[in-house]
């Protein structure tokens, strides 16, 4: 049997030993999928961070709105996500969003359907309304799953970001806004030209903290049914007998999760170095033990 292998000497795994065995083991097709799933995590971060910031901006703006229902919505959005464990939201939204989309398509595509949608313990929509369609390709199913995950992350982290931005908007000195009004700017102009450019300075500590939390929330993708790094680590690490694989081994899950631990530590270390620099800058010259230690060291 011919296998697609990276190193030529991997063609016959039974004869291998030591470092050669390991190099072949770590380059099997499944392992390449495992490495690819790190890309999924980075992709999720790259899409979620700006989307969550957008949701957060919307939420914070709504929470400050002069229109009462919009304000209640904004404040409610901020408050509820923080009172409840985020993982509960992940589990909730991933089904709820899916059902909401299918329900909307069902209403649009099958108007003459007369049976109830909730039948006992089932959720039934017509075949055309299914998402994705049962006939569509495998990659579409995966892409749909990832889209739901991204949306769920954006909703939850959007609330956190809304909280940070709401605080930052309030931290902009009020006198500035009054000055803007005195110069004849409309509320809209005051918001976009005076408040928004200045709020980022106040929002920065909260947002960088949020970034760290977001990094550490990425393994929860596993719970949303995405084939992410946790999925592959469990899959690849479990004991394998010679009947099912060319590379039998015992229970190595501990080592796979150790590798994930190191990956995340390295990832957050970069952010931490960055934050420490900002912190040192802010502590400088303060009449606190921290400032005192800096003064003595200098």
């Amino acid at each position, binding site marked *: 049997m011919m296998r697609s292998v990276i190193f030529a000497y991997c063609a016959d795994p039974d004869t291998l030993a030591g470092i050669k065995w390991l190099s072949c083991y770590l380059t099997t097709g499944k392992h390449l999928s495992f490495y690819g799933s790190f890309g999924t995590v980075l992709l999720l971060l790259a899409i979620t961070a700006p989307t969550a910031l957008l949701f957060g901006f919307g939420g914070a703006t709504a929470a400050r709105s002069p229109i009462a229902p919009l304000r209640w919505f904004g404040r409610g959005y901020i408050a509820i996500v*923080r009172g409840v464990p985020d*993982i509960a939201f992940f*589990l909730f939204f991933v089904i709820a969003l899916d059902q909401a989309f299918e329900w909307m398509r069902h209403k649009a595509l099958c108007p003459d359907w007369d049976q109830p949608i909730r039948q006992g*313990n089932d959720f039934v929509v017509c075949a055309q309304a299914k998402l994705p369609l049962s006939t569509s390709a495998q990659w579409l199913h995966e892409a749909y799953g990832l889209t739901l995950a991204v949306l769920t992350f954006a909703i939850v982290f959007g609330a956190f970001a809304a909280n940070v931005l709401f605080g930052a908007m309030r931290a902009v000195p009020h006198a500035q806004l009054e000055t803007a009004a005195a110069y004849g700017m409309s509320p809209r102009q005051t918001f976009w030209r005076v408040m928004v450019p200045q709020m980022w300075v106040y929002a920065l500590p909260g947002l960088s*903290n949020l970034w760290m939390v977001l990094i550490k929330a*990425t393994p*929860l993708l596993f719970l949303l049914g995405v084939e992410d790094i946790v999925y592959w680590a469990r899959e690849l690490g479990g004991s394998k007998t010679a009947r099912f694989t060319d590379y039998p081994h015992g229970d190595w899950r501990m080592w796979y999760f150790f590798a994930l631990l190191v990956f995340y530590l390295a990832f957050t270390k970069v952010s931490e170095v960055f934050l420490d620099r900002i912190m040192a800058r802010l502590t400088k010259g303060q009449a606190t*033990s921290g400032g005192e230690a800096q003064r003595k060291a200098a």
Partner: protein
Amino acid sequence: MSCWQTIADYSLRSIGYGERLLPRGDFTLCQQFTLIGSGMIWNIYFGVLALMAGFFLATALALGKSSNTWVLRKCSDWFIFLFRGSPLFIQFFFAYFLFVALKGSVPALGAFTAPWLGALTVLFLNTAAYSGEIFYGALLSIPKGDTEAADAYGFSGLNKFRKITWPTMLRLAWPAYTNEAIFLFHATTLVYFSGFPALKQRGDALYYANYFADKTFNPFVPYPILAGYFILLTLVVIWVFSLVNNRLNRHLPQNARPKLRFRPRLLR
């Protein structure tokens, strides 16, 4: 079956008393409220014990991190970095498989593969690291004048720490520490989704909420129930911590006391 009967059957189900089988069909609201509430026992168990044990380790870590001894400082730094720098979810998985491997070689450590001990250990170390960082930050923020005054009054060593440094540290750290406590209670919901098995379907609140959502394919009932329980728990935590906060700040004039906000800030 009346609701009282359901409560009698299922309210202690999560710790192994009462009806052995979970309800299978025709789920009533009462069943969902009772079982999810029953699961809260575990969330409270994990949260309270981890917080109480973690408090002492956190104080030690904060002192270690601010100590002048190189070894102590580095050890605390690394411990805090290890637990704050990686996701709790991965820590649970790693710890579980580590405990499973340990059980193979040392059978006496088998209890660690059960959630009540294994997951509690992880939560304890995790919250100690987060709180340690908070306490360390508070140690650095102690007003210079306070420690100078303590020196001037002849305080030193353990006496100075116990009467001046430690209470001031706690007072400054308390709002952030309250926040950490709330997050810890939220984090307890991860336990049964991260390797640790729910033996005989004895799980926490989220485990049962997820069970109902899977069976009924309707997330709009069990998750809001869970949310309600957690909001209640959050309010209780804030209330208890504000009592301590009042005591820590009792020497300050009324208007200078920091109030614990109802909505905690995201500071993890």
